[in-house]
């Protein structure tokens, strides 16, 4: 059975429905990527899963329904969300930002976890006492991811981690994500526009169009799919 599965999910903002019946399964230890154009509903999908907007339908996580839970309980159940645009707190130090991720836990556990995740992002360790606002875009994305990892998630939702980053930085970031998956077995659902880089590390993917999933396949097949290559990978 999949670690995570959605059936017939509708979601949107107020009266405006954005997602029209999404079915999605993510297997444990897999990295699944969600491709789609602007306005396809990618961000809405992640926000619906993390419980930060109203949604209908069934969401199963580890065998239990989470579609009726509050955002706080979903976090506690093991689903962490790295929102688009990072959302690091500029006035807090890097360390305080990381510790915010341990809000639901005790200090001792938090210190241990912090050490563990900092081995994946050594650049952050050098900057622990710096204000987060002084970090570069790539470092802020690392910080946002580290902060989410502090929640001890089993499923990590990443909303366009490549936003505003140079391709070389994005590539490094995806490699780190793959390494984290290798070491911890964490399951990831990544929304991306940088399709080629994301498909490099992903196992499978879906294509979202106007709030519906129009294509689902292995990452390899998607990268080779003519339609996907034309629309999302920029090959003519």
């Amino acid at each position, binding site marked *: 059975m999949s670690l995570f599965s959605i059936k017939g999910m509708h979601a949107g903002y107020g009266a405006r429905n954005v997602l029209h019946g999404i079915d999605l399964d993510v297997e444990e230890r897999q990295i699944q990527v969600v491709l789609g154009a602007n306005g396809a509903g990618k961000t809405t999908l992640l926000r619906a899963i993390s419980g930060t907007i109203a949604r209908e339908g069934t969401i199963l996580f580890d065998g239990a329904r989470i579609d009726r839970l509050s955002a706080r309980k979903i976090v506690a159940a093991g689903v962490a969300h790295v929102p688009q645009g990072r959302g690091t*707190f500029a006035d807090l*130090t890097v360390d305080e930002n990381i510790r915010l991720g341990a809000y639901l836990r005790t200090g001792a556990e938090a210190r241990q976890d912090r050490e563990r995740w900092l081995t994946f992002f050594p650049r952050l360790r050098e900057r622990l*006492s710096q204000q987060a606002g002084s970090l570069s875009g*790539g470092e802020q994305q690392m910080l946002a991811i580290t902060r989410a990892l502090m929640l001890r998630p089993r499923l990590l939702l990443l909303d366009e981690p490549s936003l505003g980053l140079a391709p070389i930085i994005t590539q490094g970031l995806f490699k780190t994500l793959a390494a984290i998956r290798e070491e911890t077995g964490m399951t990831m659902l990544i929304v991306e526009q940088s399709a080629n880089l994301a498909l490099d590390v992903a196992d499978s993917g879906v294509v979202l169009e106007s709030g519906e999933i129009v294509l689902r396949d292995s990452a390899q097949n998607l990268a080779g799919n003519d339609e996907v290559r034309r629309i999302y990978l920029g090959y003519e």
Partner: protein
Amino acid sequence: MSLVVKPKLPVAIRVAVTAVLAVIFLYVIPFVVPSYLVSQFATVLAFAIAIVGINLVTGFGGAITLGHAAFVALGAYTTAILVVRYGWNPYATIPVSAALSWIAGWCLGFPALRLQGLYLALGTLVLSITVPPILKRFDGFTGGVQGLNVGNPEAPAFLPLDDSQWIYFVCLVIAAALYVVARRILSGPLRRALIAARDNQLVGAVMGVDRATLTTATFAMSSLYAGVAGSLYAMIVGFVSPDTFNVMMSLSLFVGAVVGGITSLNGAIIGAMFIQFVPIWASDIDVSLGGLVFGGALIITLVVIPAGIGGLGERVFLWLCTRLGWVEGAGPVRAEAEAMGSAQNEPA
């Protein structure tokens, strides 16, 4: 300043600062300054408590409240009614005031959550407009326009203090205790959670911060501070009347919070001194000058030092500590971090 320094003062300096503060608060104010000023300083402490409440809800909760006087009134009238109508010991009314205003804060904080920014400011403004007429309406209980004569609590006979010195010390002890509580609240996980909920609701939510509960609790806590301030105010002045707790009081407390520094707990005492003394001095020069000085000071603060006098003081303090090397992990680590700070500013 990209690097956040943690000040670490040498022991001698720490002892000296503590000694100076102790001499000022324990000797100079109660025993050296003229007696009529001592009770004004007691009022300053009461206002400082109320302003710490505004620091919590506005500075860290991010919600503008212009209704603080309503909770001060609740505290003051709780004390007055229990003392005058039921013959309570005035000190025993302080916990009751605290509890009642905390509960009132929860009840009002919940609907207030649905209002944001300007709307919350207006909603709370209406609260402080409503309170004086309500107090006048139930005159059988509240004494109406005449108010209630609480009387000043007398100093215990075994202490060589006059009444205003005594109430000053009562206020000092309570203010110090509440200051420590606020400091505790604003260090560690709660501070981060409050800032997260204030600055980015989505991120706060996905970090497991329940903004609704947190904001309501902050509002309730700030009301508790205002209620205790009101209790003390009733004892200092010895008299409560409805029109004391009008919109002007709410506004001046808010001005005090801004001038002192909206996120600076240490600045609360400066803001309180400002709203207590500046209008009096200004109106000594000219009756109409009071409002002008008040408004002018607010504008100057907002333009020149938006962090307030307390915020500026804290910044100068940190700068001094850095210059003098009084920081945690001083030396090579800092220099290294600064060198990296300049190297990593190019876009990624």
